[in-house]
């Protein structure tokens, strides 16, 4: 409750009794530490040997075995090849998801047509269905198409991103004023023009958020690639990572080095782009209305 006590006044008025929002900063920093701690601890484990990890109490400090563990990882799996595959698949998927979902969401949010409610309702219903069971039918479909083992087989099922449509639909409905579309139509803009020139620029923040979400999901997807990618030369990072974890005993420090190497690029890329993305996603909501 103290969190809220101190939080609100800063929005409303300004209290000069103490440094502004000190308590808020303290709580936020504690939260940040909690959320970043696993990364730090992973680094600790990745720089030590497995024996150090198994010690009780375990070693708390950074060790000097990082390079050795990384070399071990690189010798065991095709790290860079699989990373390249992952980057390619995730990029293509994200771009296509953004296009397909925003187009459909725009249509649902701003147009009425027969069957609209039924179609949208089906989508919401299916969002709630666990799709793990879909793996087998999906695989059979893929094998009928002849795409088993190919990277494009990864992208296709995730293009039907119901959450994306749902999320964009909410955003467009409230964030893109009807007046603007009306005006555009009076100026002679057709359906696609309204989508491309008016709606799309206005929902850019929501798109950024969805982009991150879709990219991350694709990057971290595990079971589907494991099943569908039969060719060892064409696997993704997560599948390769799982290779490190096989066998009866696990070389923990090596696995942690692999985990670190797989997670770090995503975190770095995210940190670089996220500044704009998240800021946009949140601040854009105000401007959009």
């Amino acid at each position: 409750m103290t969190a809220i006590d101190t939080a609100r006044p800063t929005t409303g008025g300004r209290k000069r009794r103490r440094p502004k929002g000190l308590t808020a900063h303290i709580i936020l920093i504690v939260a940040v530490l909690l959320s970043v701690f696993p990364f730090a601890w992973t680094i600790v484990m990745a720089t030590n040997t497995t024996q150090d990890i198994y010690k009780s109490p375990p070693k708390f400090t950074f060790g000097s075995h990082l390079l050795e563990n990384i070399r071990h990882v690189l010798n065991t799996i095709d790290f860079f090849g699989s990373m390249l595959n992952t980057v390619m698949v995730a990029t293509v998927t994200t771009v296509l998801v953004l296009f397909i979902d925003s187009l459909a969401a725009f249509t649902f949010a701003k147009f009425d047509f027969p069957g609209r409610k039924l179609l949208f309702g089906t989508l919401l219903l299916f969002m709630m269905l666990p799709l793990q069971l879909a793996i087998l039918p999906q695989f059979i479909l893929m094998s009928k198409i002849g795409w088993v083992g190919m990277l494009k087989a990864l992208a296709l099922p995730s293009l039907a991103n119901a959450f994306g449509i749902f999320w964009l639909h909410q955003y467009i409905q409230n964030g893109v004023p009807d007046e603007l579309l009306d005006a555009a139509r009076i100026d002679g803009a057709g359906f696609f023009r309204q989508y491309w020139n008016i709606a799309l620029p206005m929902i850019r923040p929501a798109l950024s958020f969805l982009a991150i979400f879709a990219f991350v999901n694709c990057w971290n997807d595990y079971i589907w690639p494991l099943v569908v990618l039969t060719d060892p030369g064409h696997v993704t990072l997560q599948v390769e990572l799982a290779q490190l974890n096989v066998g009866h005993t696990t070389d923990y420090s090596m696995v942690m080095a692999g985990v670190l190497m797989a997670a770090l690029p995503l975190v770095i890329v995210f940190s670089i782009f996220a500044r704009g993305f998240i800021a946009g996603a949140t601040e854009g909501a105000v401007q959009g209305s």
Partner: protein
Amino acid sequence: MDLSRRGFLQAAALTAAASGLTVACGGGSGSGGTKNGKNLTLWYWGGALSDKVVAEAKTHFSSQIKLTTASIGGDFKQKLTTTLAAGTSVPDITGIKGEDIASFLPNANRFLDLNDLGFKKLSSQYLDWKTKLAQTEDGKQIGFPIDIGPTALFYREDLFAKAGVDTDPAKVAALVKTWEDYFQLGTELQGKNPGTYLVNNLGSMFDMTVGQGTQRFIDKNNHFIGDQDHIRAAWTTSVRPYTLGLDAKINDNTWNAAVGKNLLTELGAAWHALDIEQAAPQTKGKWRVCPMPVGPANQGGSYLALPKQCRNPEEAFKIISWILSPANDARGFTDAAIFPAAPAAYTMPAMTGPDAFFGGQKIIEVFGPAAKAVPIAYEAPADAAVMAPYKTELTNIEAKGKKPDDAWKDAVSQAKQIARRQGVN
């Protein structure tokens, strides 16, 4: 405006056409009709075969065949099942884990009968009981044995010595003829080594005691027999370490940390030696092996099989019989602690040397005889699924302190239900 609309139409139409087409027109790419393909794929998992032998096989057969190998991570059985069910991208040669082989037998028609390809002539080289486990009732052979997992008792020589026990393997073996002897020794050892335990958990005890029998959970007539005396006896024996306080109750990922520290013994298959060695390298020289109380069981050990879609059965069979020849099989022992299914390998130098981790003991002297003495038991396709609730209930005893008798009742009733679901009567 016109342009952008056309652009949109093209994009939408393309996407729609692509997805429509891909759904509509199936088939097409399946495996070719000819059975003398030059490209063969081999699926296995890390540690199933000696990577060195596999690499040599590639060069050895390179003039006729281009062999591509894939080491599959994660759940191997799931991946193989899905691929076989879909019928495309099926490997030409695949590994099958020993614990999974029974569940593939009802679908033997998905595989080639190795007897047709000449396995009959070679079969005498491999342990009969192991070969039989990959055989259907009507004699179709779907699996070519890679390795086996004869079990033995691993023990800490230093901790035994501390308790004043004669640590010579033969002497220890004589001390632990029965499970009760073993538990009694455990109590003695624990007294002299406070904080140590005899067994890591009850589930692994149960694996051993069931594996020592000639009957499992389902008989050949497809009847559930998991409530009968042989299982009850195995259960009762397995629970003893718990009541005696000899059970370390390790049911999470801490075995790695415990094995070098407070475990007096380990019950396990030959390949388990590598686990111990990797988890606790600091205990090098402190371990010994002797025959298990009562007698050996088998744990694990895999097969190679040729799916029906195999593009060149004759060459594929040549390749697997080369990889699994006794001489090459013996090398698997050195490279990956794979214990060969071919007894001829047991006398080869690769296997008869002293093992430094076991203080120079020649462990083949324990495992060799064990391999031949493993009891033969019928393993039904649903066996593993039916066994699961027993092990779950054993962990319930350990984790929740559930009364062993209640646990037994629940285990049997659940096992019965699973059996019914799986079509056992």
